[in-house]
């Protein structure tokens, strides 16, 4: 019960033409509250599948997934939407903000689906944007923001519901080195200050080096799971 994430014997098979592809094979994984984890692996290693299962976007073929003590494996589509809304914040490589929609409205969106009233939505979205340092950009649309700013809007959107888990899929993939580190610093700070569990999927070693725990996925299995006693502090690096 102390784990936030608990995977037990999780497998995921895909049918690719006549052949069955084992994207994940018998994965066990425990992640505790407040951990900062990097999942690394080459493309095709199964790390994206793992991410999708952790994010309740996909169901495992076999095994069991508990999130915050809730068995989400066998939940209905609607219930899993609810789990995503309540327990998980997503940050994507491509930012995935709604185009022609202001930063504020983007950040309000998860609260809309939660049924929060307009005034409360505005208050919380404005606070989340302030938290990521964009208090003065609330009415800008994605097209008017830089890549780093867009990703920070996306982080604000992930945070606005106060989820225990933040999943970041290649969050720095579309950013230059300096901006990447700014974004990473933000994620580190969130993890430290708010006790949010952060799971980052990445293929960049220097990004993974910022995490306290590095899980390497290879051929659908967890190949290595190691503690990183001296994580890079991204913010320091960014000031070099």
């Amino acid at each position, binding site marked *: 019960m102390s784990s936030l994430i608990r995977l037990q014997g999780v497998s995921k098979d895909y049918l690719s033409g006549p052949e069955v592809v084992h994207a994940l094979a018998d994965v066990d994984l425990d992640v505790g509250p407040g951990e900062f984890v990097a999942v690394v692996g080459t493309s095709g290693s199964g790390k994206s599948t793992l991410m*999708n299962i952790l*994010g309740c*976007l*996909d169901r495992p073929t076999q095994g069991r997934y508990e999130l915050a003590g809730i068995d989400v494996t066998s939940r209905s*589509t*609607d219930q899993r*939407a*609810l789990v*995503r*809304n*309540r327990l998980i914040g*997503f940050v*994507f490589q491509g930012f*995935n*903000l*709604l*185009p*022609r*929609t202001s930063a504020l*409205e983007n950040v309000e*969106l*998860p609260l*809309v*689906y*939660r*049924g929060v*009233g307009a005034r409360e939505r505005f208050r919380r979205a404005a606070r989340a944007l302030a938290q990521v340092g964009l208090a003065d950009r609330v009415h800008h649309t994605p097209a008017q923001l830089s890549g780093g700013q867009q990703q920070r809007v996306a982080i604000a*959107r992930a945070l606005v*519901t106060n989820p225990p888990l933040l999943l970041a899929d290649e969050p720095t993939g579309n950013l230059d080195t300096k901006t990447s580190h700014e974004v990473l610093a933000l994620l580190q700070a969130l993890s430290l200050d708010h006790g949010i569990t952060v799971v980052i999927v990445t293929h960049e070693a220097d990004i993974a080096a910022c995490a306290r725990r590095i899980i390497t996925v290879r051929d659908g299995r967890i190949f290595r799971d190691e503690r990183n006693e001296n994580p890079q502090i991204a913010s320091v690096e960014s000031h070099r």
Partner: protein
Amino acid sequence: MKALRTALEMAILSLVRQRLRSLLTSVGILIGVAAVVLVAALGSGARSEIDRQIQSLGSNVVFIFSQPAAKSGAKSRANMGMGLTERDAEAIRREATAVSAVTVYSEVNAQVVSETGNGKIGVMGVDENYFEVRGYEVATGRRFNESEAQTKAKVALIAPTAQEKLFGSLDPVGRWVRVGKHPFLIIGTLRSKGQSPFEDQDDRLLIPIGTWRSRVVPTLGDRVQLVMASAKTAEHSSEAERQVKQILMQRHQIAEGEEPDFRIGTQQEFQRMQEGIFTVLTVLLLSVAAISLLVGGVGVMNIMLVGVTERTREIGIRMAIGAKPGQIQVQFLLESVALTLFGGVAGILVATLLMLAFADDLGFPMQLNPAAIGVAVATSVFIGLVFGFWPARRAAHLDPIEALRHE
């Protein structure tokens, strides 16, 4: 309720982001709804105009036309062109209990000349009951009296159109007109009765039937063109028709089952017939208009499908952050309903404006009834739901992982 409001907000927001496309899509619905509303208004306007015209014939009138029944020359003396006579009218007046008044008339189009003008005008020989049965009212002057009728006096009443032709703005009472070689004194003018389904009822000169027979068309004897009987009430109408038929069959010595030499029609029959024609026309036009509404609906569906494809990624994002499939479906459904509702309301406005613009040219008022507006609004919402359902369902059933990967 609150969730629905937020969904509506989101739907409208999405539509506003695609202003031009939304506008063009709803134009299809606009045209359809405007067409339906216009046709319905035209239909009910035309119908009440017909009603009004038929009412202007009089009240509960039974018309008896002379009808030469000669199908083959060999057929009995009843076919000798006897037709209807004043004595037939007399008999009906005497014997038909369901009838309150009987009148006769004969009409001929004749050249009528006055001191200030001339024209072809319907000169009608009528008896003194004609005014009641047909509901003619005297505007100025007086009607001819019994002694004038009996002495075949050369007096006449003039209706507005004829008055305009012959006298312009002069007061005709006390002036003279000439029909053929006979001068007639105008003793009164009639109020306008307007157009009947058959003719302009105002282009007339009314003279006593006796005078008409001896001075205008002296060759007809006591035959008349038309006998009109007024039933006591609307309920007596068919009874009156039956009685009249019986009396005339007897008088004209026509056996049961033989073709009569007259034809009977009631005002109600005229009305039903005319309304029947207009109902058929209205239904035809309405179906054409409804097809254009259907085409508009297909346009909405098409655009919604394009929208779902284009916004696949957006749908993926919404799902990832916790939108349930149902919520996605409601949003897209509301978008299509908002489109069609907007088109519908705009269509009603356009139809109303067109009606106002063309009201004068049409000659009779179109009637925009509230029921038609209600139906139009309901129909546009319905079309939005029907044609938006499938695209919305497609959006709701997208796989979030696939949708997020969509470029």
